[in-house]
């Protein structure tokens, strides 16, 4: 029981720290952290699909874009308060993802990855095509939301707390989902879909639903980003976004909840560091980072942390109810 307690205490400490940040950090830093949280939500969505369920997606930027545009269009055209647009974006992405997940059932591995990649490529074009709604390539300029109820917070502080709250709720929901009956089924399908079916799991339904949930997470992240950046344009959601999310997911640790946060920090800050190291070819530095990371931590940061943790504690008896899939074992089977 102590380890579980320690875990909860640790989480609470991190959360407390996160809540204190707005009173220590500058608005700009807060904005950066807000972006990290947004990425983390998106990556958790991708992790559910790719890490836990084994369905590869190179196109999650598409759902991010859909979420952002749903939110932006609602705010811009119908003056819906931003707060309401976030769940709506999530629900719409849930449906879109589920519908995309149905045909995707027929595709495996590489072909699924490339089909989703196509989705990521097509979305910016489609956004431009429906200019009447989306503002075309000019995009939609939004207003940054202010703190409600006269809270004495700057817009950045307010958005930070809002994003943090959404993050906590979504991570809580995600963790619940992944550690329960459904989560075990999701991983079981990835590990061995034949025996999963033999255990009574309707893998077609589960895979489509996971696709939907995953898209919903990423869509919520997109909707949050629309408010935080206060601008949406097709250029914000090009194929690099999908690839960046995938990088964050793999570097953070695929089948891991905490990995989503590590990965988000990576994609937010490492390109900036790369820039500090070399102005001449920042991406070359970033590329080297990627390769070195994969050499040193082939199972991502969460995988490496997990290993170090196990080595340190040397305890084989771990607590029940933790993540069903230790990341360092993920995908070792085929």
């Amino acid at each position, binding site marked *: 029981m102590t380890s579980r307690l320690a875990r909860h205490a640790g989480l609470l400490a991190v959360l407390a720290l996160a809540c204190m940040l707005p009173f220590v950090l*500058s*608005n*700009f*830093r807060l*904005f*950066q952290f807000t*972006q990290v949280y947004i990425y983390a939500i998106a990556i958790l969505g991708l992790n559910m699909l790719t890490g836990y369920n084994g369905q590869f997606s190179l196109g999650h930027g598409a759902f991010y874009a859909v979420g952002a545009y749903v939110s932006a269009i609602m705010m811009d055209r119908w003056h819906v308060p931003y707060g309401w647009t976030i769940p709506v974006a999530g629900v719409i992405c849930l449906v879109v993802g589920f519908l995309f997940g149905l045909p995707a059932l027929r595709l495996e591995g590489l072909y699924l990855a490339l089909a989703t990649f196509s989705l990521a*490529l097509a979305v910016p*074009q489609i956004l*431009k095509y429906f200019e009447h709604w989306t503002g*075309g*390539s*000019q*995009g939609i*300029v939004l*207003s*940054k939301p202010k703190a409600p109820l006269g809270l004495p917070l*700057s817009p950045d502080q307010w958005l930070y707390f809002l994003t943090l709250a959404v993050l906590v709720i979504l991570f809580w929901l995600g963790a619940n989902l992944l550690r329960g009956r459904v989560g075990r089924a999701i991983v079981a399908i990835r590990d061995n879909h034949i025996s999963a079916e033999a255990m009574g799991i309707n893998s077609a339904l589960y895979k489509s639903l996971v696709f939907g949930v995953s898209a919903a997470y990423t869509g919520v992240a997109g909707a949050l*980003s629309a408010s935080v*950046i*206060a*601008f949406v*344009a*097709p*250029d*914000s959601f*090009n194929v*690099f*976004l999908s690839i960046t999310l995938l990088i964050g997911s793999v570097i953070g640790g695929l089948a891991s909840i905490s990995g989503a946060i590590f990965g988000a920090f990576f994609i937010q800050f490492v*390109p900036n560091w790369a*820039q500090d190291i070399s*102005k001449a070819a*920042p*991406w070359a530095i970033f590329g080297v980072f990627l390769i070195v990371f994969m050499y040193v931590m082939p199972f991502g940061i969460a995988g490496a942390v997990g290993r170090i943790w196990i080595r340190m504690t040397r305890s084989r008896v771990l607590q029940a109810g933790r993540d069903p899939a230790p990341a360092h074992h993920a995908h070792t089977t085929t």
Partner: protein
Amino acid sequence: MTRTRKLLIAVLAVGLAGLIPALAAQTVVGVTATEIKIGNTNPYSGPASAYGTIGKVIGAYFKKVNDEGGINGRKINYITYDDGYSPPKTVEMVRKLVEQDQVAFVFQTLGTPTNSAIHKYVNQEKVPHLFVATGATKWNDPKNFPWTMGFQPNYQTEGRVYAAHVLKNHPDAKVGILYQNDDYGKDYLKGFEDGLGEAAKKMIVLKQSHEVTDPTIDSQIVNLKNSGATVFFNITIPKFAVQAIKKSHDIGWKPVHYLNNVSSSLATVLKPAGLEASRGLITALYMKEVTDPQWKNDKGFQDWVAFMKKYYPEGALDDQANGYGYNVAILVAHTLRQCGNDLSRENIIRQAANLKNVELPLLLPGIKVNTSPTDHAPIEQEQLARFDGERWVTFGELFDAFRKQ
């Protein structure tokens, strides 16, 4: 500190517009006795990385300024970040410049979507947003966005220049248009269509778009030829301009070919496309084409070459962007000199909006920078030119968008 500033902003917000200058305390940020901090974002990576060199050549020019003693004894501390042409990244980087690095002003941020993303922010924060590197029209809107200022002639204006020429010389033409499917292409298109006015519907027989990620535009050229167009307005960046010129030549389509200024480089567009195939192209220029042999003995050009060799030897001498960056860096240096010792943000934008007949070494002779509090478009003159197989030959009178309004 932040609280007082917030208070200040609150006070300012309730003040009447006319009273603002009187009430406002002068905000001096990013300036010390020995230094002035300038912020910039550029796409050093990503799809628009070809323009990254602009950020670099500006840095090289500021080094030259610093080597020569700086401006009014202050060295320029030029901070430039990569935004990868991604609007969210631009927001982040500009906020970093403004809030963390505390630059005096932001300058030459590149790209329309990227600048759109920070447009509101810099104006709310009252940070001068000078000489942005995009040809959209919205930067010249001093009423709503008093802190933002454009630089180059805007694409819509240029589109109107061509339209006027078409109406005058080929009133019965059938017009075919190829444009890049983004803000840049659509701005040109809008200017051109507006310029044609009522005649647009009748004259334009086919519009074809392409994505910047498309490998080729052959198909579009084939369709344009097939439409029977006798005038071709070509709104593409250099890579596609080369293809368009080559392909239309190859398939034997010989329209009156208007090529947008963006792709007017001899070295990177016309030569690869074939000088013969390029003969007769019409474009509108405001800068000296750095690869055009006619400027070989021009003082401004020679100065630029000498500068490039000394301060930016790795930069390409056949890249118009390096000439562009040089021009704009000189303009900002000029503006700062004009500020004298008052380097408050208010004065910087005030001076930037008070440039009178400034000449830049690589502007075409006769083209001058002029701004005013109601005119945030520094360069508004353009000159039509026709390619004679060797160089751009200017013709007709200088077109001045501002005067015409």
